[in-house]
């Protein structure tokens, strides 16, 4: 990572957060010091500096990797669990075997994914204490409660009723078995609510008062009805359904395409795949509408709650009135003088996105940096535990390229997946399916888009909150004086070597398991209904004496 030292001479190596190589400084971006005179509106110099491999940097990478990875599994689990419960309900009500096939097939893929979500979730809960002990001490009075609630209310229901559902085919009555499906799938949604309550508190602390320099919970109701949470929850859940809908759409479309190209008959199985595909496409399309609406609400909130996140998302240097929305930058947003960034803009649009009208002023990064310095101080405390940052000047602007491109990739990938869904609905109307060679691979590729949209959305919102781990609440009627810098949050008793060990070990295991998961999903997708439906003969005696052999076993 050695290179020219001055930020101004930093080479243009920023290609967005997708490139692993340039991603190192991105994650530690706000913590790498630049020249004092570049304070305003500069992004951190990417790729142009020596980045010390420090505890904080490793801890942040670990949190980023484990969280993004966990969130590859979570939205698919949540969305697919509800869809499968819906399919099973259709089977229960109509008795039509078509819905049983759909339940079994999509249920199997959901289970392959569910296991991964469960086991990677334990890491999420443990690493607050392990890697972020200072954070845990500081916020424990507030932050622990939603986590404990998530465990007691959601995780127990999820795990117990999933076990009952997997092993309960033929053992429970159809009605009880269906109830199990709804129990665990709704529990995944409840789980999302509680963990988003915790996250929203980090974005916008409410319901606390400061006692002896630490936040004390004064209203759990305020935490559970935080307006940040009420906006983030629907946005996240729509994101889950966008993922699940596109997943179903992509795989089912690939199955139909393959059958048609092999010249297989237009039989019942094709109808079931076709039906699955259209269900998935509708789910994805409706989700995108929901995402756009909830995202707009969330964005307007963020302009009030974390104006620097949003100004950075727009690379908006100077306060504008009315403000233009930047669609796409073709300059180098990583340059410290963001004035040189050229971008295609839509006049008045940003004023609308921020405040709902076309003439309100939107504050730029330079002005906000000065306001934050007045409000929260100019320098980090001279605490040796802050390492290199002790006594240094505080950069309040989050990493500009990550925030700017993260925001655009989130929206962009979401839009692509919506277009895919719309296209699928049009081209497959009335049972048809286009014959072209590219349609199958294209359908499979579309599965990736909502995943990427989710990932970039989280990277954007978490990186955009930097340098804070708990962002201050700027609302004067809200909670004042509660904030924490990320640099202060890391465990001071843990050595960089330990942190690096766990980072490498977890990343390696995660990598291997991702390969295994995809391998299994591909196998099940290839296998189709035959691989998941019970063998025919067992259907005949399921009514009499079928109790001897387990209907499902590992």
């Amino acid at each position: 990572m050695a290179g020219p030292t001055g930020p101004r001479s930093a080479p243009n190596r920023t290609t967005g957060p997708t490139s692993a190589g340039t991603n190192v400084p991105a994650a530690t971006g706000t913590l790498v010091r630049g020249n004092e005179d570049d304070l305003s509106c500069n992004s951190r110099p990417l790729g142009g500096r020596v980045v010390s491999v420090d505890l904080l940097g490793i801890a942040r990478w670990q949190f980023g990797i484990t969280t993004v990875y966990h969130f590859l599994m979570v939205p698919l689990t949540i969305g697919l669990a509800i869809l499968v419960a819906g399919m099973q309900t259709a089977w229960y009500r109509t008795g039509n075997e078509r819905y049983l096939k759909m339940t079994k097939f999509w249920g199997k893929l959901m289970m392959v994914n569910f296991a991964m979500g469960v086991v990677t979730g334990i890491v999420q809960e443990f690493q607050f204490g392990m890697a972020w002990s200072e954070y845990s001490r500081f916020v424990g009075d507030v932050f622990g409660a939603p986590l404990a609630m998530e465990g007691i209310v959601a995780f127990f229901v999820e795990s117990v009723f999933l076990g009952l559902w997997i092993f309960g085919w033929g053992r429970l009555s159809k009605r009880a078995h269906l109830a199990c499906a709804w129990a665990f799938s709704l529990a995944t949604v409840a789980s999302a609510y509680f963990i988003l309550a915790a996250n929203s508190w980090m974005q916008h602390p409410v319901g606390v008062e400061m006692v002896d320099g630490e936040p004390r919970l004064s209203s759990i109701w305020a935490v559970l009805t935080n307006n940040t949470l009420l906006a983030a929850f629907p946005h996240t859940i729509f994101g889950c359904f966008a993922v699940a809908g596109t997943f179903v759409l992509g795989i089912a479309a690939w199955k139909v395409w393959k059958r048609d190209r092999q010249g297989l008959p237009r039989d019942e199985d094709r109808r079931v795949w076709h039906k699955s595909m259209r269900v998935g496409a509708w789910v994805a399309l409706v989700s995108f509408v929901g995402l756009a609406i909830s995202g707009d609400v969330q964005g307007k909130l963020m302009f009030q709650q974390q104006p620097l996140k949003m100004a950075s998302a727009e690379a908006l240097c100077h306060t504008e009135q009315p403000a233009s929305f930047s669609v796409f930058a073709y300059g180098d947003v990583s340059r410290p003088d963001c004035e040189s960034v050229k971008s295609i803009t839509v006049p008045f649009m940003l004023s609308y996105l921020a405040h709902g009208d076309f003439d309100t002023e939107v504050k730029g990064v330079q002005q906000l940096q000065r306001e934050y310095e007045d409000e929260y101080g100019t320098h980090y405390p001279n605490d040796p535990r802050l390492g290199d940052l002790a006594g240094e000047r505080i950069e309040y602007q989050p990493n500009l390229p990550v925030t700017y491109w993260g925001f655009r990739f989130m929206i962009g990938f979401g839009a692509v997946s919506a277009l895919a869904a719309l296209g699928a609905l049009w081209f497959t109307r009335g049972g048809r399916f286009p014959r072209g060679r590219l349609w199958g691979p294209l359908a499979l590729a579309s599965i990736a888009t909502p995943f990427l949209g989710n990932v970039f959305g989280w990277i954007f919102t978490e990186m955009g909150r930097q340098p804070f781990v708990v962002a201050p609440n700027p609302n004067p009627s809200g909670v004042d004086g509660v904030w924490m810098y990320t640099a202060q949050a890391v465990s001071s008793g843990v050595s960089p070597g330990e942190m690096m060990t766990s980072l490498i070990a977890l990343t390696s295991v995660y990598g291997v398991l991702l390969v295994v998961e995809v391998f299994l999903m591909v196998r099940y997708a290839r296998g189709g209904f035959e691989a998941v439906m019970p063998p025919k003969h067992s259907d005949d005696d399921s009514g009499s004496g079928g109790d001897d052999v387990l209907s499902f076993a590992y």
Partner: protein
Amino acid sequence: MDLPTVWFCVIALLWLGYLFLEGFDFGVGMLLPVLGRRETERRVLINTIGPVWDGNEVWLIVAGGAMFASFPGWYAGLFSTAYLPLTLLLLVLIGRGVAFEYRGKVDTDRWRRAWDAVIVIASWVAPLMVGLVLSATVFGLPLDANGDRVGGPLVILTLPNLLGALAVVAFSLLHGAAFLALKTEGGVRERAHRFALLLGVPLLLPVVGLLLVAQLREGAAWTWISLVIVLLAGVAALARQAVGRDGQAFVLQGVALAGVVVTLFGALWPNVLPSTLDPAWSLSIAETASSPYTLTVVTWVAAFGTPAVLVYQGWTYWVFRKRIGTEHIPPVHAA
């Protein structure tokens, strides 16, 4: 009793639930190659815990979450100090959970053997780490005034803590054997039964040893009572096992475990994590407890949530109460 003390007891109870439930499913995993000689027998073993292992593991997550909510300083101090053991615990729990779910999904011996290896290794390593970390919180760690570790990552490896690790492994083995004797039939059951009888006494020794160390170093007068209960229940469990009363033996082991947890947490009280450097730096219940309001909130959640959990988790065990033998295992149905 004030709320912090109530929550200290709740944490003890959550760990008891975890050790009781995941204890036997760790034992089943450890005994997989010992008692499961043929593939179908190994599937018998795995399917005794198939529907329930995930729910059992949630007790660990909730124990961690409850510590975070009610004693943030305890959670932060213990988890950051025991960084490497907990990392290893997380890694093996990840592998183990995925192994159960994926093992039957491809029908080749190589595939199954690989996941079996993950299950066995993880089932041995996990209780070792749990025992290490739990003992460390009882016997203390070299903490500074901030509650952070002084010294390298391996300071946790003291003799008492290693004994604790051994004790949890030993208990899990014995508990797993008793569970299998209760839940299986045929060859597996006979072997599990023999295993529990033959190794019952040697496996109880490290448990009793751990309790004696805890009692002599930190114990109160009243914790002698729970220690004696452990001995009585442990011996009674073996006696019931000998006459083939598998259910009673299993329950008596639970009673013994309750005695173990009471003795250990009794020895820990009124601390939550002693500092071995300076008693003034020890983390206590009073110092690390969350505010009364927070504790009240989580008390209400636990008061309604926990009984419900016990009811529906109990119901699962009722639904899957039948003994499993090789004749109940369906043919492999993989992708």
